[in-house]
């Protein structure tokens, strides 16, 4: 009995020796983690503050209603705003229906064969392709071969390709989240495949699909490289009125202003960045809201 306690006591002593070092290690990693977090947050804050300080003075009505100009005081983002808007409308009109239908086909109809697997692997790969590659593709296929020119439409087609994998993947996940019991209930009532998809799978998956589409849109709005590749203009003193008109978009306008010599243009660029950020924050908030609602609805 006494011996037992002795053994216990001895081993306790052995363990105690390392305790301090272990605690130190724990603290060390907490501090390291915290520092990493702070680094990210601080860097972001500095950027934000810098942009706001630089740009907020230039955010006035004139800024939104003027075309670009060689005189900073008269320059604005009207063309870029409308260009972005037009391009996004066409992009979403192209990408969402194709993406959603692809997802429905792959999830609900496609058999499990080599062809389906080939497509699935490729979609996953496409999501990781650098955006400039899409730009090169768009330049060759849409601008040159299909003779769309350096137009809004060519830009939209390129962007649609770029975000298609995102929409497909998000939509497939949303469809896969539909409980099997709901499909079974529908089939057991004598509903056909399409009726089941149309009345139960799609409504249930819709918030998830919308979230994916919005996040994809946010990605497309911020993309610059592919549009520069296909040759979107940097100086556009007019509104595109036709899908085949030339155009510019917000990030390109910002890029253009940043690269000018006069420092006033850098303030304009900062103002443009604020607008872009606000748009992106709104889009992401809507996506988060929808995702939250999806979680709580059933």
């Amino acid at each position, binding site marked *: 009995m006494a011996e037992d306690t002795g053994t216990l006591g001895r081993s306790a002593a052995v363990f105690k020796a390392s305790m301090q070092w272990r605690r130190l290690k724990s603290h060390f990693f907490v501090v390291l983690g915290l520092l990493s977090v702070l680094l990210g947050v601080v860097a972001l804050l500095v950027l934000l503050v810098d942009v706001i300080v630089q740009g907020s003075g230039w955010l006035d009505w004139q800024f939104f209603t003027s075309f670009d100009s060689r005189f900073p005081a008269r320059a604005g983002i009207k063309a870029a705003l409308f260009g972005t808007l037009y391009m996004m409308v066409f992009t979403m009109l192209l990408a969402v229906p194709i993406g959603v239908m692809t997802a429905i086909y792959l999830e609900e109809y496609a*058999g*499990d064969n080599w062809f389906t697997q080939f497509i699935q692997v490729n979609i996953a790969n496409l999501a990781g392709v650098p955006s400039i590659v899409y730009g090169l593709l768009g330049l060759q296929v849409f601008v040159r071969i299909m003779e769309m020119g350096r137009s809004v439409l060519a830009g939209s087609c390129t962007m649609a390709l770029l975000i298609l994998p995102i929409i497909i993947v998000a939509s497939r996940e949303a469809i896969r989240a539909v*409980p099997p*019991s*709901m*499909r*079974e*209930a*529908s*089939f*057991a*009532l*004598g*509903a*056909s495949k399409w*009726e089941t998809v149309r*009345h*139960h799978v799609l409504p*249930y998956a819709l918030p998830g699909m919308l979230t994916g589409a919005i996040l994809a849109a946010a990605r497309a709005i911020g993309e610059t490289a592919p549009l520069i590749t296909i040759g979107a203009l940097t100086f556009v003193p007019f509104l595109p009125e036709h899908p085949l008109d030339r155009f510019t978009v917000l990030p390109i306008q910002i890029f253009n202003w940043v690269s000018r010599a006069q420092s006033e243009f850098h303030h304009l660029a900062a103002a443009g960045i604020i607008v872009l950020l606000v748009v992106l924050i709104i889009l992401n908030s809507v996506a988060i809201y929808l995702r939250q609602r999806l979680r709580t*609805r*059933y």
Partner: protein
Amino acid sequence: MLKVPFISSQEEESTVDAVIREAVATELPTDVSVEMPNPAVEVNNFSLWYGDFQAVTEVSIKFPRKKITAVIGPSGCGKSTLLRGINRMNELIGGVRTQGNVLLEGTNVYADAVDPVEVRRRVGMVFQKPNPFPRSIRDNILFGARVNGYQANEDELVEAALRSAALWDEVNHDLKQSGLALSGGQQQRLCIARAIAVSPEVLLMDEPCSALDPVATLKIEDLMRELAKDYTIIIVTHNMQQAARVSDFTAFMLSDDTARGKLIEFGPTTDLFTNPSDERTEAYITGRFG
């Protein structure tokens, strides 16, 4: 007096005894266990494979019209698979293969010309876990009717279906509320109402009460007795008291070393429970295995 071998509790014994006595006294024809004239569903030499895995082996059984047939047997013996073979639900899973046939009113539901969608309208199904659509009660009832081209008055159909499922009085004040807002037992009755709203000939129920409390269970059982006046009902259950209380006929299935998912014995519930002809049936209903 009939002796029910599987029941230990004294008070339960008397209830089940009473049910069985009553059943015997009233209506059971005597020759049914062998020859079932004019069955609603006839399963002939039916086998089913999930890929290479055979889950049902050469089952032949005739389900009598407008009667309740219980399918019992230990877990994994192929009861659900057999049930889902009748309305071709198994096909929704890839890699399923069948052999033999299932006759619904004399027509083979596996014939090439037969569309499984039409089979499923004629053979309703109620699942183990209540699964109403996340829609209003009204839409739950009307969905099946609408896709199947129901033309007549929708309000009347909703009321008739809910009344048949003994749910009308509990929900008629608000048919717009979500089907998910109901209690588990109410949800299951909504699922029954939804199934009978498309005028099926047969109702398949796969452990419809296993997610419910005893009171809700008794309600469903009462409902089943009521529905058996119009429908042929096939119910899978693990609850032997339930099988004895509610069914007219009982089928006992089993998997053993030689084959999986075999029909061991089929006959009037009273016979099967009081005087099983196969010793494995007796072993199962007396709780010696399973």
